[in-house]
């Protein structure tokens, strides 16, 4: 059996990230999303939020700046980074993320599936990461499907 398959269900090292106001602004500017709820505190307050909020795909920022380095991940899993594709990404939202929040991400190797096809095999790896704020409240869950062509 595949080595990685045997690690299915395993928890991976947690990492954390302090959300900065400027990081949210930089992120939405790169996307080109003009929604003021990400940058204008007064607007966010009128919308009923305690402060500006992080956008729906901000989890990637927590991952990559918080310590889940892509190449390190490939090394951990024995994946060839040139043969890896991001197949799917899924988010579930449980609460808002604001500037100043210290988010702790707890990733888990949720699923490993191997398939043989005509042009060789593929391996599908699902990472499931749960994100908690400094009060221990679950705010976000992410599922990331990585596809490795072999």
């Amino acid at each position, binding site marked *: 059996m595949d080595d990685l398959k045997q690690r299915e269900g395993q928890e991976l090292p947690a990492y954390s990230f302090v959300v900065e106001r400027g*990081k949210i602004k930089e992120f939405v500017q*790169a*996307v080109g*999303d003009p929604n003021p709820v990400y940058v204008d505190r007064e607007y966010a307050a009128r919308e009923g939020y305690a402060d500006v909020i992080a*956008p729906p795909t901000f989890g990637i920022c927590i991952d*990559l700046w918080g310590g889940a380095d*892509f190449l390190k991940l490939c090394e951990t899993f024995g994946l060839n980074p040139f043969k890896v594709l991001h197949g799917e*990404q899924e988010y*579930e939202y449980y609460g808002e993320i604001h500037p100043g929040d210290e988010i702790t991400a707890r990733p888990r190797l949720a699923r490993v599936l191997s398939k043989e096809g005509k042009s060789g095999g593929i391996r599908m790896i699902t990472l499931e990461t749960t994100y908690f704020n400094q009060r221990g409240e679950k705010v976000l869950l992410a599922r990331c499907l990585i596809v490795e062509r072999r």
Partner: protein
Amino acid sequence: MAERVRFEDVNVGDEIPRLVKEAVTEVQLVKYAGASGDFNPLHTVDATARLAGFDGVIAHGMLVMGFVAQALTAWLPNRCLKKLKARFTAVTKPGDVITVTGRITAKKPEENLIVGEIQAADQRGEVKIKGSFEAVLPGRKEG
């Protein structure tokens, strides 16, 4: 901001307001690399992208998912959004003009929940993301 969308006002088959983005640029990919922390050179260095078999840099899939999220949260307050899922079906390149479209596929009145499908496609109609979402909307009597 637009009028609040209410659960009762949304019907299965309704389209969500479409979002047409400006063409993706190389500078945008550099900005997104820095913002997201994804420095895979496939997205910023032409020579690396060519080694990987592309004619030049390709966009981060997560950038295009950001466009999908933008379309949804331009329509619904962020707090309404409960789930967003994207399957990456094709690569996006600088110059591509992405349009996000979606429609409601189901309603669950007991939770005021709506379910929808959403996609991002380029100027040739090539689909880059096939996705789905779930949102809980306020009812007419609330908020």
